[in-house]
């Protein structure tokens, strides 16, 4: 299986017997600096998947496969590791060394704090449709 599949759907090694404790996977706390949103995230799932799985919000979700770049984050505190390929159109090698990554391809090792960077782009539908002139940033959502 592709790594991403196992991350999204880890199969239990065996079903627990009645009264037997279920081994809980290691988790860390993820904090989004801009909104204060906080959620637990497993060490074997992406920062984005952990958020989506719990129905939480704050990091824009797009392709979830490292290609579209809307979930770009800056890890300002804590340790993380990559769990898949990320598009160099959105995160350069230099940026990655400075703590930027895509939340869909990064898992926590410790509690982490993130700035949501996203891609700041003018939303055509909002600026033209309705006659407004809004500039939206994914980091604001």
């Amino acid at each position, binding site marked *: 299986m*592709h790594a*991403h*599949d196992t991350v*999204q*759907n880890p199969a239990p090694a065996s079903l627990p017997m009645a009264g037997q404790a279920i081994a809980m996977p290691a988790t860390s706390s993820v904090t989004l600096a801009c909104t204060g949103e906080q959620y637990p995230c497993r060490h074997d799932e992406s920062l984005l998947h952990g958020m989506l799985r719990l129905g939480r919000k704050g990091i*824009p*979700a*797009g*392709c*979830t*496969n*490292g*290609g*579209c770049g*809307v979930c770009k984050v800056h890890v300002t505190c804590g340790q993380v590791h990559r769990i*898949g*390929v*990320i*598009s*160099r*159109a*959105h995160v350069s090698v230099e940026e990655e060394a400075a703590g930027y990554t895509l939340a869909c391809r990064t898992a926590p090792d410790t509690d982490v704090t993130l700035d949501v960077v996203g*891609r700041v*782009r*003018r*939303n*055509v*539908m909002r*600026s*033209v*449709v*309705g*006659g407004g*002139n809004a500039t939206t940033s*994914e980091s604001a*959502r």
Partner: protein
Amino acid sequence: MAVMRIGHISVRVMDMEAALKHYTNVLGMRVTHTDADGNQYLKCWDEWDKYSVVLTPSDRAGMNHVAYKVEKDAELDVLKQKIKDYGFAVAELPAGTLPACGRMLQFTLPSGHEMRLFAEKECVGTDVGSIDPDPWPDSIKGAGAHWLDHCLLMCRFDPEKGVNTVVDNTKFLKEVLNFFQTEQVMVGPNGSIQLASFLSLSSKPHDLALVGAPTSGLHHLSFFLDSWHDILKAGDIMAKNRVRIDVAPTRHGLTRGETIYFFDPSGNRNETFAGLGYQAQRDRPVTTWTEENLGRSIFYHTRELTESFINVYT
């Protein structure tokens, strides 16, 4: 009627093994060729030419080029001159530049997308053959897509600065390549700005779609299925394979198509598209969707745009 249909699309993938699993197991395509550079060539069971999708290894997602097939090789010379006369640069790539493919014209659309035209590609036949064929082969995998149907290109659009490459592309495609318009979305003051343009070469509601966006890119490549039930089954296949679904089964107002949007493992958006909607003809009145009904034009049931559908592309 020289240009016939979409011939192939070349897309970048960041993990070839995962991409091959996706395009074969989920969409049901088959690899027909692998070249020395590791590029993979695939076809659907109902296609007769050797390939319709080219996957190229890269460090990013997105489209390399889209190619349309012309009926006769000699027409490429006429089209080359027409493109030149329109004022665009056009290169001719010799036969064999892509495997099993004849010479290609190569040019850039006003939106920045690379388009190619070719007339000849090795015909390997459909998987049911052409003599007393069954309606479908026993070898079908996954969603069992019939053919690469169309693609949607996001086109640089900033009307306040006078930039609308949806309009520029449409003009070129109609005047030079003989596409005809089936539908459009008009927005802004008095509905004067063309935000989306749907173009056909055949009796299908679209062979190419163009939508305005802050930057140009690939919104999706779409694969044809027969029916609404095939769409539901495709959704089941995607769930089984843990594919990221962007838009669950629904209907478009535009084209009347039945659809699912989802992402390949590199984040390139795919669509499975069913129902031919209506018979597109050159004299059929163009369908216009107004700004007020923009949501309904795209998602007919919910009538609301979604953030990811608008903002996410490669």
